[in-house]
C-alpha cells in the first residue's frame, strides 16, 4: 500500500503517507502511525524505496521517501499477484452465492 501510494503521489514524507493511506481507504483503515516507520525502513533496506531530507509544503524539514526502479517493478508484481488472488477467490465465492 505504501508503495502504491508513493507511486501515485510521488515523493512523500512519512506523515503525508500515513494520512494518504487513511484517506484512500476512506478512513476505514485506522493505522497506528508508529508502525509505518519500521515498515518504511524495511522497504528501504530491501531497496524498494529511498529517502532524502527535504522541506515540506508548510516549511518543515521532513524526510521524503520515493520509489526506486525496483520499487516500481515490485508494485506491478504485487498488483498482478493480488489481482490473480482476488480473481481466484471471486471464482470460489461466486457459486457459493448462487447455491
Amino acid at each position: 500500500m505504501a508503495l502504491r501510494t508513493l507511486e501515485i503521489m510521488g515523493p512523500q514524507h512519512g506523515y503525508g503517507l500515513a494520512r494518504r493511506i487513511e484517506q484512500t481507504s476512506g478512513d476505514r483503515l485506522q493505522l497506528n502511525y508508529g508502525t509505518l516507520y519500521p515498515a518504511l525502513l524495511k522497504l528501504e533496506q530491501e531497496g524498494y524505496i529511498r529517502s532524502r531530507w527535504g522541506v515540506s509544503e508548510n516549511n518543515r524539514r521532513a524526510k521524503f521517501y520515493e520509489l526506486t526502479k525496483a520499487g516500481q517493478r515490485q508494485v506491478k508484481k504485487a498488483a498482478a499477484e493480488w489481482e490473480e488472488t482476488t480473481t481466484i477467490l471471486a471464482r470460489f465465492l461466486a457459486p457459493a452465492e448462487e447455491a
Partner: protein
Amino acid sequence: MRKLRALCIRLCGLGMKRVDEDFTAELECHIDLHTDEGIRAGLTPEEARRQALIALGGAEQTRQAYRERRTLPRLETLWQDIRFGLRILAKNPGYTAVAVITLALGIGANTAVFTVAQAALLRSWPAREPERMARLIATTPQGEEVNFSYPDYLDLAAQSRSLEGILAYSRRGMILLVGGESKTVLDDIVSLNYFSVLGIDAQLGRFFSAQSQPASEPGVVISDSLWHRVFNADPSLVGKQIWLTNRAFTVLAIAPPGFRGLQRGVPTDLWLPTESTQHTDRKIREFEVLGRLRQDVTAAETQAELDALGRRLALTYPAIDKARNIGLISERERLREAMAPTLILMTAVGLVLLICCANVAGLVLARSDARRKEIAVRLALGAQRMRLLCQLLTESLLLASLGAALGLLLAVGLLRLQPAVMPPAQVELGLDLHLDVSVLVFTAAVAFLSVLVFGLAPAIQASRTSQVSTLKGEGTAAAKGVRRWTLRNALVLGEIALSVVLLTASGLVVRSLFFSQSLPLGFDRHRQLIYFDMVPGIAAYSSERSATFFAQVEEKAAAMPGVSHAALARRVLLSDSGGGMQQRISIPGVELPQGQLSVPVKFDTVDGNYFRAVGTRLIEGREFNSADAPSVGRVVIVSRAMAESFWPGQEVLGRQILADGAACQIVGVAEDAKVDGIHETPEPYMYFPFAQQPSGEGTLIIDAEGNSKALTTRILSEIQRTDRNVPVSVRTVHYLMQQAFWADQLAAGFVGALGALGIFLGAIGLYGVVAFTVNRRRREIGIRMALGAERRDVLRLVLGQGLTLAAIGAGIGLAASFATMRLLSTMLYGVRPTDPLTFAGSSALVILVALAASWIPARRAASIDPMQSLRTE
C-alpha cells in the same frame, strides 16, 4: 536476494549510534505536522500534540520498534552476553582456567583420535572412483592370502572380462644414491597399467603405461614426498638419471602430492615398472593384485568369473595352484573391517570427554549455586527466564570455545608426537596427519555437544531459582540438591578409583621399563658404538673381492684417531636382522631332543676384534685370530646357553660340531647376548669366523671415543674412497637401543599419560564437589565460627569430606587394580602385577592429590568471616 540485502544493511547498522538522532528528527517532524493539522482543525496546541502522539502510538515505542528493525537485536543481545560472559570468566581466572583445561583435554584427545581415524580410514582412497576398486584374495586351506605370483596375475589380467583393469604391485626396498650419500627407500614394483587403472595423473612428466614400453634404460616414478625431501622439488629432475642400488634409472614422472601408494602407514617413495622377464616363477607369490570393476557387472557375476578362473589355474598348475580359490574384497569392505579398533578408541576418548564434561558441569553448578542471589535479583527485576538461560548458556559456550581452541593446539601437539610413537626405522613411516576442514568441523561439533552436556542442566537449574526464598536467604531446592549431590559423589568416587587403577598400571609399567633397561644385553651398550652396514654383494662382487674390501676398510678405520676398536660382523645384535640367520647343526656324541638328526641354531659371523669391540665377555677359550684362515680347520665360538644345553656340566672347549657338513672345533665360550629382543630368554647361539664364512654383506663396528659425529663422517668418506660402488648406511648403538626399547617405552608413555589424565580429572571432580558443599554450607560454617569453632576445625571439617571421598575411591581403586593388573602380566618384566610398593605409591599419590584439591575450598571455608556470612545470608 532482497532479504539478504536487508540483512547486510542491518548487520552494518550494528554499533552505529548516530542514526538514532536522524530518526528522532523525523519523528519530531511527524508529530509537528500532525499537531499543525490539529491546530488548523481548531484544537488547542496541547490537545493537538496529545492527539498526534496517541495516533502515533507513543514516540519511545516507535523509536524502539524502529531500532529493532534497523539492526539485529538478537545479535546485539548475544554480543552483550558474550561481553558479560567474558567479564565473568575473567573475574574468576582459576575457575575459568580449570574448566578450559579440562575441556581442552577432552576435546583435544577427541580431535587427535578423529584425525588419526580420518587419515587411516575416511580420507578418500587414492584413486578415481575408489568404490569400484577391489582387492583380489586367494583362499587356501591355510587361510587367506593377498599375494599372487606374477604369471598368475598375467593369466588373470588376460582372461578376466568383468574387471576393467587389473594391476599388481610388490613392495621392495632399495638404496638411493644422491650426492655420494645413500638412503634406504621403499619402492613398489608395479605392473605397467598401475597408474592408469588407479586413474591418477602425474604432477610432472608422464607415467609409464602399457603402451609406452620402457626404452633400454628403465624408468622410475618418484613420490612427491621424496621429490621434496631429497631433490628439493627440482622441476628439472624429470628426464634425469638417478642411481638406485647400483643401476641408473631415468625419472619419468613425479606422482601427485598426497599419493603415497596403496599401503596405509608405509608410504611408497618410488614406483618401478615390472620387467616381466624377471618374474617368471609361478611359485614365488610376491604381488598384491587389485582390479577395477566394470560398471555394468554385478559383484556376483565377477565372483562367478573369478571362481572359474581360479579353477582353471588350479587345473593347469595343480602342483602350485591347487585348492586356491580366488575371491574379491572391495576396498570399502576392507576399510570397514579395519574400522573396529578405531571405533573402540573413539568410544574411549568419547568417554574421557564425557567425564571432562561431568567435571565441568560440577564446576558450573558450584558457580551458579554461588550466583543464586544475582540470578534471583535479575529475575525479580523482570529478566525473562529464557533470556537468562541464553546468557548462562553463552557463558558455557565461551568456555567450550576456549576449550576447543586450546584442544586444537593440544591435538596438533599430540599429532606431532607421531614420529616418537612410530617404531624407529630407516625409512619414513606413518600416516599423513594434518588438520583439515573436516577436523575443524568435528572439533566445533564436539565443543557444541559438550556445551549441551555440561551447560544445559546447570543453566536450567539456575534459571529455575525461586526468587522469593533465595532473596530471603533460604537454601533452595533442598530435596533436589541432595539427590544431585549423591550422584556427583558417585561420579567422583568412580573417577578416583579409575585414577588409582591407571596410576597403578603406569607405576608397574614404568618399573618394568626400569628393570628392562638394567638387563644385561651381552654387550656394552654404554660404549659409543657406530655401525656401518655395507653391501658389496649388491655390486655383484666375488666373495674374494668383498673380503678384500672389508679388510681394507677395517684396517683404515682402526688406524684413525678416536677409534678404540674396529671390528667386522655380518649381522648386528638387537637390530632388525640380528637373529636372521640359522644353520642346522649336528653334534657327534650328543643325543638331540626327540631323536632329531640336526637342530637349527642361530649364528653370526664375526672377526677377531668383535668381542673386544662390543664388550661381549668370553667365559673361556680364545677369540678368533689370523690363524683361523679359510684354508685351515674350521672353528666356532658358542654361547653359554649353547654349551649348557648340549654339554651340561662338561668341558666344551675342543669339542666338535658339524655345520654344513663341515666339522668345526669349539675354541671359545661367550656370555649370552640378546639377539632379537631384550625380553628373550638365552638360547643357543654360535659365532663363526668371518674369514671362514665370507659374505657379500657386513657391518663395520666402531667403538668410538669422544665426538662420534665427526668420526662418522670421516669413516664414511673413507669407505667411499675405498670403493664408491658399495652402498653404506649408518646406525648407532643409541638408535638400536631406541628400537629395542620402543615397545616398552611406548607402553610406559601411553599408560603414564592415561594415569596423569585420570588423576587430573579426579582432582577436578573432587574439587568441584567440595567447593559446591562449601558454598552450600557457608551459613552453617559461619554459625560454627561464631560459636567458637576455629579455622583449624573448619579446615578439618572440609578436608575431612574430601579425604573421605578420596579414601573410599582409593579403596575401590585398589581392589579393582588387584583384580585387573594380572591382565598386564604379559607386559611386565621384573615386577609382579601385585607389587605392593606400586600399589601403596599410587594410592598415596591419589590421596595427596585429593588433599591438594580439597585444600583450596577448605581454605576458602576457613576464611569465611562469620559476621559477614551471617549478615548476608
